């Protein structure tokens, strides 16, 4: 993947490295070491600073993960609405634990804090798209959208 080409539109944007990282993650769901080094060169900052930015934000990952990132909100309103049952159901359905990715590289399972859809708790998002009032029965149909 040509990281510099993906990030080029943000090169002249002051402070644009975060937008550039978003652009890369749109293509491949996480930030490789090469991508971080390319960003450091493009924005003319030390590699350690680019790495520092990549590791500060929860939505950036420096470890490989599945293509479709499933996030489960576990903030208090979702917690009392039964987020734990959703977690158990997702783990069962995908055969992996929270923080892991499926062996076929299709899905990653992550915790999230409130995603701002609390009128319909519990909530999950897949690649940023929210699904509200989730329960164990609804999960297979939701996942099927990403087959």
């Amino acid at each position: 993947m040509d990281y510099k080409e993906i990030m080029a539109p943000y090169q002249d944007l002051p402070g644009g490295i975060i937008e550039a990282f978003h652009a890369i993650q749109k293509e491949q769901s996480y930030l490789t070491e090469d991508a971080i080094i390319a960003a450091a060169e493009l924005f003319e900052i030390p590699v350690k600073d680019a790495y520092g930015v990549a590791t500060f934000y929860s939505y950036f990952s420096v470890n490989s993960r599945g293509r479709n990132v499933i996030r489960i909100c576990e903030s208090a309103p979702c917690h009392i609405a039964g987020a734990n049952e959703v977690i158990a159901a997702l783990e069962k359905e995908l055969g992996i634990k929270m923080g892991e990715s499926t062996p076929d590289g299709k899905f990653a399972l992550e915790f999230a804090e409130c995603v701002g859809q609390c009128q319909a708790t519990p909530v999950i998002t897949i690649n940023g798209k929210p699904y509200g009032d989730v329960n164990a029965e609804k999960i297979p149909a939701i996942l099927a959208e990403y087959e």
Partner: protein
Amino acid sequence: MAEEMRVVLRNYGKIDPLKIEDYINAGGYQALEKARSMSQTDVIEEVRKSGLRGRGGAGFNAGQKWNFAFQAQADQKYVICNADEGEPGTYKDRTIMQGDPHSVLEGMAICGYAIGASKGYIYCRGEYPYVVDLLNQAIDQAREKGVLGDFDIEVRMGAGAYVCGEETALIESIEGHRGEPRFKPPYPPVSGLWGKPTIVNNVETLASVPVILEKGGDWYAGLGAASYPGTKVLTLTGDVVNKTVIEVPTNTTICEVIYDFGGGIAGGKAFKAVQIGGTSGAFIPESLLDTQIDFDSMSAAGASLGSGAVLVMDETRDIVDVVCRIAKFFEHESCGKCAPCREGTMRLHKLMNKLNAGEGSAADIALLNKLGRVMSVACLCGLGQAAPSPVLTTIKHFQPDYNAKLQ
């Protein structure tokens, strides 16, 4: 059901947010035109006189803040709309932006004119990529129509860090850095984005501005509570019948919010507690439900209005378990810049875990009390200062819940 008072949400559900014509037909962008026919100081005075105080949590008088930035001498100034909305249980800024994005753009442009800034940023949280798209469409339409004049607005997206809602951390993030809060002073109106005078205002604050210009500061000052006038947009979550967004005058009581607007406790159960202001807010017992939601009444009751999230819990809820979950949130979201918060949030969580597992003692509760008091004064930013609030207020108001879990 009691009547809402829709000021910020005046166009919500009535116009197509993606049609600027709808907004203009509803009187939109006339306030900006009016502002531009006034002197900068007159605009600031109108906003100051309205008594509008920041809806992002700190409650600072908006006009007064603008005046600091107006008086600062600089070749460039900035307006930032804080759309980070990270406080769990809060979705009011999303509702405002999705329902009526131009009201936010217009508020920003009025602020820009008043302080002498030609550039604005909207910092929208990474959880809302669909709102970013919508805002960009609205900005394109406004540019095409030429309504913003020489004021330019750019949207930047966060990436999942609660602390980036803190205004100086937010500024660091726009600059492309880790979102760690800065030491203050200097405050942003004097030295903010790239060292330039910067106004950071919440979405709801900015969306209130056009209507204040249109109807006058005196009109707004007459709504709701005298010391924190206007309306507040609240989001109801948890064990309440109507899990919804409402806008009410600031002299509404918590009881009215839960029972008149929220329809009471779901499933016919009894009330136990309500946490207002998001996850950093106090837990409020039944005895305080007659408190008005305005900033000062809430402070006097040892609580805070914060973002306006209202998390209702019924009699079956395990308070210690909920607070334990909240403590995990703060451990995760602490940016680590200062030791009292970096270590303190970790200790709070460990102690809460111990208590929640039924392995704690009275000495642990005493330790939590002491640690919480130290953190609320020793931490660098509001995250660490407010993190102990749910712990301290539940120990105070819900002691039996803790006692029931002691070894």
